[in-house]
């Protein structure tokens, strides 16, 4: 399957996180899950489904979230030509 294997896109600082639920509430992809009324840190339940929009980082009242980009995005190796279609005659 596709996805940045093993990469965690949302780093939460355990020292400053106040487990307030806001990141869970604002994430548009249902990626961040926080148990209500719990002191446990939020869980990045579906890291491969992150849009890297940073709504969580922006909304965090404790400034405890950093969006971290994966290697696939920071140092992409796919040539753009491979996205522009291929010859249907050629079987691979």
């Amino acid at each position: 399957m596709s996805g940045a294997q093993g990469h965690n896109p949302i780093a939460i600082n355990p020292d400053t996180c106040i487990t307030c639920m806001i990141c869970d509430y604002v994430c548009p992809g249902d990626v961040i899950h926080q148990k209500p009324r719990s002191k446990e840190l939020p869980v990045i339940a579906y890291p491969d489904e992150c849009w890297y929009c940073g709504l969580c980082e922006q909304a965090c009242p404790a400034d405890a979230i950093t969006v971290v980009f994966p290697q696939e995005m920071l140092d992409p190796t796919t040539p753009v030509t491979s996205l522009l279609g291929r010859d249907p005659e050629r079987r691979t």
Partner: protein
Amino acid sequence: MLTWPSMEPTRLHTEVLVIGGGVAGCLAAIQARDAGADVLVADKARFLERAGSVAGGVDQFMTPLNDGPDWDTPEHLMQFVPMLTDGLTDLDVAERAVHELPRVFQRLCDIGIDFTDPTTGEFFRTRAFGLPGEYHLNFDGSLFKHRLGRYTVGHGARFLPRTMITDLLTDATGQRIAGAVGFNCRTGERDAIRATAVVVATGDINRISRNVSGLPFDSWHYPYNTGDGHAMVYRRGARLVNMELVEATLTPLGFSTQGTNSYAGQGAHFLNRHGERFMFKYDPKGEKARRTILVNAVIEEVLAGNEPIYVDIRHLPEDTKDDFVRTLGVDRYTLPSYFRQRGLDIRHELLPIGISEMSIRRGGSYFRGSGLVVDTAAESNLTGLFGAGDCSMVSGGISVAAAMGAIAGRGAVDRVRSTETEPEPDDDSVTDSLGRMAEPLEVEEEDGGGWSDLEDAVRDLVTDYVGMRRTERGLRRAHEGLLDLKQQEALLRATSFHELMRSLEAKNIRLAAELMTVAAAHRTESRSGAAHRRLDHPATDDAVWRKAIVLSHDPATGVDVEYLVERPTPVPASTGGDA
């Protein structure tokens, strides 16, 4: 096996159901509430304030303001619309939207959205997209959607959170919409909603082709818009238009974000690997050419082996560079931190750029759309079914979404008021909808791959054969592949309600790809630049093809094809281009 938390879905009842809580959905809800209707809005997000593709912010609103200059009227803007739509819209509906723009803009001002420039307190208006006047207001819209959502709820619309609506309900005739079903992606609570009018405002279609990072959710547009609305209306016999049109954009290589084309307007140069400013080969205006021309030029350069392509701002004066860097995060909040993490200082270094993945939206032009065919009241061929925003026939950023949303909200109320007997959802339509919703939960063993494997396979077929360079052979091969993948859909298994949502989204993406392929194969010409490019039919053929392709589901034959012809346009005395 995962089971539903309750045996029966919760029965809800409303006059107007709005599916999708973005800009179009909120305006539909507000208008319907203005008329005193009972309104329920459902969205996959937890809060309406954070629902939709511009929840993170937006920076432009396009409207004439009737504020003095000749160009500043809907009539003047309307003269220009046929030049954008390229024969692929219903100009009566587009005209209705254009006239609604100043009205819905006033409504947004009235609810407390501040469109003024914070530094001057005045409207800051600019000319963009080659329009014949300064219709674009630049504003700080970082809280735009937040305010709009909050107002919508405060105005009395009820909100159904984290709810994916999966199918529409009809009455016994099958021609009258009577509600919808959905489920909560966390709790699995199901809802069967009875409604007299339904507004579908579910946005565009993404996650449908590959990109440079290889991460499907790294997309230029909102990756959680997956054609859910397109699929549900199609299954009930509504008509979809312009499904063959693709839209891609220039993007920093590795992070699909919008805004890169606007760098050109700010004075950036575009270079190829030889250091050549290649844009002048494609347009006398160089980097100031229209966006579709920019995208096409970059594609041509890549195909000519001149990759990598760069944006260069090194020559700009220091204060311009300051502005440039300061505004990077407006379109995407995380872009400045992306450059930091990449160690890229664009003041002093070249920025490598590429082409984003594709979306099905409107093929890059305002006032047309890829989706539900609607009339001037935003109603479809199914009574009681309305559409607005990027999932409908007339779209164009937040402005046209707001305008058509407002029109749909009023239309829905008119439909409610003129309905003597509230439509009753037919038992078969309820059973069929709930059955389809449950399919991935009932697959006991993981025989096939998961939803992401299915999506990957769709993206490969679309990227290779249905995207930027189309041929009959390639399209045929993609079509066969997409029909094969339909068989695999039955094997998709969900072990959580979140996974159920993604599985149903994956099926919707596959269906959208199939419809895209059918329409692209049908259109034996090229049209609208990169929006539809046939290598085997490279010329635009206005005599035969200046018409939109409309698809609908025929239970007997599969996909039924019709055409929609734009009304003839009188040649304007002045193009208004010098206004």
